[in-house]
């Protein structure tokens, strides 16, 4: 079965085209063309849009909005998105970063989707199919929504300096597929943790929150003893995959080690 490409000037027109059977939306192509190359027969029409709104980045009033077509390279080049640079840089080599988009990353299954882990820790809202959805809810219903879903942008509050931390653990350096990915956004109340959002990648089939660990961090200091309860609870609710990179057992075992290093860094 052959493929055809349909290009539309606006996201609205692309959205309408996605109502047809056998369509799949393409951002940068690193997921969709790869699937086509691997013989995925679930789609025969690739839909894309050149809508400039999807390539826009806005950072003002403590809020950042990033269009779904913004690439990882564009994030790296933006002066106000430095806090996201470690996550953007963790994705592929330079060629992949010139192609891979923010919107596409939301659909990347484990062990991919490192940028989504960062966005989940940042309390991101996703604009998808004309509605605004919390990223956590979007990820839970991602597969039900269907692969023809059209994300137009993500928005999140800009984190306080030094509050946001990101770590991708991989066996191959400098670039390799993730064993696991951790992003943490901490709000400190003096010397103690006032609030915490911890997001984990490769600990389920999509990025998830480590809610038990978050709860255990509240009111604690960032010391070895202070974070011990959070580390003990880190793997609660996780269901990591076993794949060519690591076993589920290994991921559970090393998660507290790396989360501890990130919290104490």
């Amino acid at each position, binding site marked *: 079965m*052959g*493929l*055809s*490409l349909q*290009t539309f000037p606006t996201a609205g027109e692309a959205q309408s085209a996605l109502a047809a059977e056998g369509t799949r939306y*393409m951002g*940068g*192509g*690193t997921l969709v*063309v*790869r699937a*086509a*190359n*691997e013989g995925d027969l679930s789609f025969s029409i*690739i839909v*894309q849009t050149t809508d400039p709104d999807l390539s826009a980045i806005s950072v003002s009033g403590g809020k950042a909005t990033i269009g779904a077509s913004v690439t990882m*390279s564009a994030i790296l080049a933006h002066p106000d998105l430095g806090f996201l640079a470690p996550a953007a840089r963790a994705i*592929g*080599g*330079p*060629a*992949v970063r*010139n*192609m891979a988009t923010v919107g596409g990353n939301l659909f990347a299954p484990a062990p991919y989707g490192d940028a989504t882990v960062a966005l989940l820790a940042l309390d991101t809202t996703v604009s998808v199919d004309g509605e605004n959805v919390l990223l956590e809810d979007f990820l839970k219903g991602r597969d039900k929504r269907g692969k023809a879903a059209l994300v137009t942008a993500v928005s999140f509050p800009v984190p306080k300096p030094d509050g946001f931390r990101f770590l991708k653990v991989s066996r191959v350096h*400098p*670039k390799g597929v993730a064993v696991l990915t951790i992003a943490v956004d901490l709000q400190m109340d003096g010397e103690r943790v006032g609030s915490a959002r911890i997001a984990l990648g490769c600990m389920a089939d999509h990025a998830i929150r480590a809610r038990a660990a978050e709860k255990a961090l509240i009111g604690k200091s960032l010391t070895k003893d202070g974070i011990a309860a959070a580390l003990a609870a880190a793997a609660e609710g996780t269901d990591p995959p076993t794949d060519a990179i690591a076993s589920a057992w290994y991921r559970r075992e090393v998660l507290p080690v790396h989360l501890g290093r990130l919290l104490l860094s």
Partner: protein
Amino acid sequence: MAKVPVQFTLNGSERAEFVESGTTLLLALRDKMGDTSPKGGCHQGTCGACTVIVDRELRLSCLTLAETCEGADIRTTAGLSAGEVLTPLQRAFEDAFAAQCGFCTPGMIMAATALLERNPKPDRAEVIEAISGNVCRCTGYEPIIRAVLSAARANSAAA
């Protein structure tokens, strides 16, 4: 399957061809335009052997649809040398034994070319980062890193 026209500049020459809709840039270059310098390795975006430069940006031709390159300026390894006169980077690869089987070499050369055009004096860490999307199973990478650093020094000396 319906064929669609694609037209772009390839290594300085205007090229036009009909390709089946959904054809990757890699296959359009290799099968339709006779430029076999980009290699088809994994077709997954992992190996980097198909790396080309599209509108001054490094891209993977195996994950790029040819139709999306309408009017673009595309450069491949085949267009770097002037006849038999190699670029300093290509000479450095030769001198440093940075190619063994040679399969990754065109992708490595394009990744390094993009780096040196953006940053003529990269340090070792920047070279490693620049080729981090390109897999080499022969050299252990060290000769490639040395070649890129050597080419950067040669460029600086010539400037």
